[in-house]
């Protein structure tokens, strides 16, 4: 604690006078040239405008003018035209391009003219509240008489009736539509009878399992609408993704008119890719991303620029907040200039942070992905990413939070030591030229489909050969009939069970319950935070330092069953970091077949995530000052998987060393995972890969150099005895409790997957391997000249896959 790591003197070299994104980018580039591996500018655009449409209701036009809107951006005018023509519309433009006006205009006009109703769906409550606030302001400005309400879990019971009857615009989320509105649609009869528009914003968040659920909720919504004799028009909005139109059409299962050119003016966006300096050339160790992020953020704040820092984990948010507060908020008499923002804070605390940033009363927010969506925090100048967010689309979305019309903005991506991060900063062209990822959903995934047919049957009986989405529902109804929840009479299937199926179906697969953090300092009993189930094991173990607005609390007791963690305020100079690992065991093999010289299998597996202990890490010096044991139940997951194995004899003939085979399996796993993710249209996080022993005795993880490291069942590195059996196995498994049925289609396409993986790697432009094929590879491998023994990760992965290719 005694020496702060940065010399403030150097700050002044950079900070002669406050500037904009361009000047800060230039100064950083000059001062830290060696750390900047890529710098480019996304040029700003002149605005492209159109007059207010003539067919806009005069009162609405007046309200817009009162609020200073004399003309529209071109994309807003296009959206107006397209909705007037009756088409479903998808608007795909960057953050802060005035997207909401694209749907506000048709919705308000229709409400004023025809008493038409609209349903808005946002993925989060915060966005819904923003939107209602905006509608109310516009409404007040023109005395339009349009009533807008949020309808979510926080809406009090006595207000709900009024909202159902009198709401012109009801702003909710897919979960509420699924669990509260559709199963009670008769109470909403008047609303549905007049429903003209369904607005779905942030549709890029509806992908993977969540998106597949939401697509089914939309099927149910359309089915209920048909009962009331309406076919509402959909207006969808999305941040930039690779396939916005296709994704919008997949969600609503209908053709949409896509509007993709933004007419909003923007300043230049400067982007820097930043690699922390090498601090130990012998070991190739670099300074931490955290120290660099801290430095860049500090410089930006000192230059008077509003700054947003994104961190990958909640604990990193707290650490970075603390560091910035140590510099800027050391005087308790002054109002704070730095705030943290993340899931787990209570809603009112988050609202306060948003408001403070919007009003300009604070200078920086440190956030998790929670601020990636369009929560209104006003305009920002600088965005610093502490680590690559995992996708090109998410990176641009985060950078997009900065930007003013006339002024240039700056986005800095600070690479962590993660191999993928390192690959990216070494290859700026990959990032610059990459198309954003495609959003994919699979609404007909059997378990998801069955869940929603169940919910749909509760809402309205199925009659005859009724379709649900793209399938005839009958076989599924038969199944539910057998279960006893439906009763068939003639050609009608009626709900008969005494249950409410939507309650048992969670769209977001986080049904295990949040943990609350209870502060017991000085005999208090105050809930100070919430932590979701998946994060509890790695943040709330006994002994953990839980940081909240950068104040450390120590976890004294964790009541796992009761979902409570009791903490007290503490004063320590360290934070804690959980050690966790995952291993897999085969429980049941449903099916298997030859795969080249080896075999492919499909079956049920047991995945265990264990937290055996934690490290204590001192602030600033980051030295490891101790370990603590953690005694928590393993987090177990029964799921389905598909896996490939090669016999020991084949491997020994093909590889000189076992290490090479392991590296090959790791690379093959990466390629198979990429191909499989596309094949079943999953999100990468819904489908996981793993390499381990066929008998579960050990598993392999990539070490810092991207090479396979064998670990025993306790998570510690092990060496295998030369005579021990050696059957490395590559697994692809469903990452959700109970599985989501992705492995069966994968097994059916097993030959195709291997063949495609081979061609993916062969066609990749890289020499030794890259994240686009076998995973990131260390610089040393990359610089290796063409190696006759072909032991690059790429070559090794190809060798493994060649053995698995069907004969």
């Amino acid at each position: 604690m005694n020496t702060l790591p940065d010399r403030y003197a150097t700050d002044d070299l950079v900070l002669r006078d406050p500037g904009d994104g361009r000047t800060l980018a230039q100064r950083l580039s000059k001062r830290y040239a060696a750390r900047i591996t890529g710098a480019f500018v996304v040029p700003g655009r002149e605005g492209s405008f159109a007059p207010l449409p003539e067919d806009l209701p005069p009162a609405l036009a007046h309200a817009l003018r009162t609020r200073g809107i004399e003309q529209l951006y071109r994309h807003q005018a296009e959206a107006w035209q397209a909705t007037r023509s009756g088409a479903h519309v998808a608007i795909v433009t960057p953050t802060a391009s005035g997207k909401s006006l694209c749907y506000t205009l048709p919705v308000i006009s229709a409400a004023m003219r025809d008493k038409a109703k609209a349903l808005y769906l946002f993925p989060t409550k915060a966005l819904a509240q923003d939107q209602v606030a905006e509608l109310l302001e516009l409404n007040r400005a023109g005395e339009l008489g349009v009533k807008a309400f949020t309808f979510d879990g926080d809406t009090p019971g006595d207000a709900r009736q009024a909202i159902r009857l009198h709401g012109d615009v009801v702003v909710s989320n897919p979960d509420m539509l699924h669990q509260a509105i559709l199963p009670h649609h008769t109470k909403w009869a008047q609303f549905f009878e007049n429903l003209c528009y369904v607005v779905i914003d942030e549709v890029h968040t509806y992908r993977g399992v969540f998106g597949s659920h939401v697509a089914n909720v939309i099927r149910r919504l359309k089915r209920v609408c048909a009962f009331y004799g309406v076919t509402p028009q959909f207006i969808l909005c999305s941040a930039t993704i690779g396939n916005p139109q296709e994704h919008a059409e997949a969600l609503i299962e209908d053709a949409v008119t896509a509007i993709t050119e933004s007419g909003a003016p923007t300043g230049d966006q400067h982007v820097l890719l930043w690699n922390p300096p090498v601090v130990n050339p012998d070991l190739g160790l670099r300074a931490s991303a955290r120290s660099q992020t801290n430095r860049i953020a500090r410089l930006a704040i000192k230059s008077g620029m509003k700054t947003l820092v994104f961190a990958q984990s909640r604990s990193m948010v707290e650490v970075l907040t603390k560091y910035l507060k140590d510099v800027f908020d050391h005087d308790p008499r002054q109002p704070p200039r730095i705030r943290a923002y993340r899931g787990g804070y209570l809603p009112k605390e988050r609202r306060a942070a948003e408001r403070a940033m919007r009003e300009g009363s604070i200078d920086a927010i440190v956030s998790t992905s929670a601020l990636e969506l369009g929560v209104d925090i006003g305009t920002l100048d600088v965005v610093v990413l502490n680590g690559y967010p995992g996708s090109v689309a998410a990176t641009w979305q985060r950078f997009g939070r900065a930007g003013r019309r006339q002024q240039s903005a700056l986005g800095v991506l600070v690479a962590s030591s993660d191999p993928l991060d390192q690959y990216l900063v070494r290859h700026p062209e990959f990032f610059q030229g990459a198309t954003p990822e495609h959003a994919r959903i699979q609404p007909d995934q059997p378990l998801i489909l069955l869940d929603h047919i169940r919910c749909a049957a509760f809402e309205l009986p199925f009659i005859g050969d009724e379709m649900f989405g793209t399938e005839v529902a009958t076989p599924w109804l038969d199944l539910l009939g057998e279960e006893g929840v439906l009763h068939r009479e003639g050609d009608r299937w009626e709900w008969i069970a005494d249950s409410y199926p939507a309650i048992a179906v969670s769209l977001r697969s986080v049904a295990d319950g949040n943990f609350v953090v209870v502060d017991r300092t000085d005999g208090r009993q105050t809930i100070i935070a919430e932590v979701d189930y998946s994060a509890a094991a790695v943040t709330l173990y006994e002994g953990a330092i839980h940081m909240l607005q950068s104040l450390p609390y120590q976890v004294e007791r964790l009541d796992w069953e009761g979902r409570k963690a009791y903490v007290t305020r503490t004063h320590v100079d360290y934070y804690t970091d959980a050690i966790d690992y995952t291993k897999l065991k085969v429980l049941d093999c449903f099916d298997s077949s030859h795969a080249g010289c080896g075999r492919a299998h499909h079956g049920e597996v047991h995945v265990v995530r264990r937290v055996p202990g934690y490290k204590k890490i001192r602030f600033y010096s980051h030295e490891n000052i101790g370990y603590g044991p953690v005694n928590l139940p393993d987090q177990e997951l029964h799921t389905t998987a598909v896996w490939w194995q090669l016999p020991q004899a084949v491997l020994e003939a093909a590889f000189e060393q076992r290490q090479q085979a392991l590296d090959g399996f790791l690379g093959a796993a990466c390629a198979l995972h990429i191909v499989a993710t596309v094949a079943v249209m999953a999100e990468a996080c819904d489908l996981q890969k793993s390499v381990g022993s066929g008998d579960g005795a050990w598993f392999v993880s990539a070490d810092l150099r991207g090479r396979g490291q064998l670990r025993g069942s306790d998570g510690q590195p092990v060496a295998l005895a030369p005579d021990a059996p050696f059957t490395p196995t590559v697994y692809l498994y469903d990452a959700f409790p109970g599985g989501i049925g992705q492995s069966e289609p994968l097994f059916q396409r097993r030959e195709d997957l291997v063949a495609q993986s081979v061609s993916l790697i062969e066609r990749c432009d890289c020499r030794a391997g890259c994240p686009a094929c076998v995973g990131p590879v260390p610089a040393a491998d990359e610089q290796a000249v063409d190696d006759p023994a072909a032991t690059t990760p790429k070559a090794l992965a190809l060798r493994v896959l060649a053995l698995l290719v069907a004969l």
Partner: protein
Amino acid sequence: MRKLRAEAGQVSTAAPNALPQPAKPTFLSAASSPRLHALADTATAPERAISPELRRLLQRHAQLRRGPATLLSSDREVPGVEIAPGLRYTEEFADWLTPPAIIDATFARMEPVHHYHLLYFDTETTGLAGGTGTRAFMIGAGDWIDGRFRIRQLTLTTMAAEAAMLRTFAAWLSEDTVLVSYNGKCYDAPLLATRYRLARLPNPLTGRGHLDLLHPVRRHWKHQWENCRLATAERQLLGVVREDDLPGSEAPAAWLTYLRGGSARNLRRVAAHNAQDLKSLAGVLVRMATMPG
């Protein structure tokens, strides 16, 4: 058949003030052949589109259970006459508390009302889950006709008869009907509103006066009684003690068993329970209306 009659008798003698037997109990065998066909189809159909692997996966992960097997029964007798396909109607008269001509409803903060405008009603439903998936399979209604208490019940023996049941019940209500229920404002009336909406029929309960006895009972006796359920109120105020009463929670299973081809025995007990509820409703109302102060 004798046994059935004996059981039916037993149920009605459970009431302390013995009532005449149902006016004309007619026992007809239920027309159940379409339903049996449906069952047969169910047993063979799934193989045609869902692969065994998928089935196994669904069973493993979706907690698909086989529904409770219902034993087909020869006891299929549901009381009443069939007034529409799948809809049975019973009517009985009870000599039961002579009501004052004008019911003083000030205890419920309502205007005085002539007793012949009152319609007591109570539904038996497939559950308490709420939402669009819960339905009433029986509607009982009581009223005073020439000083006697008339109990009419509608029972579904097929689901398709629901619209006929809803229409029949609607026809029992007139402009100046005042409904009387126990927790009907929060339970029976919204449930029926949903069913009328789903059947695309106007809701006859809209705009009718509705005297929900639960609330005045709560106001008076919340602190004296262990709870304010109707069974408690009838015991405390009327001295009614039920014997062989089918608990309300078993009503859904009773109807479902019948619907799936099983015994009608418990469904008849549901009807008896429902009839007793209506009588108790009338009794509680009279007691409260005539209470001093």
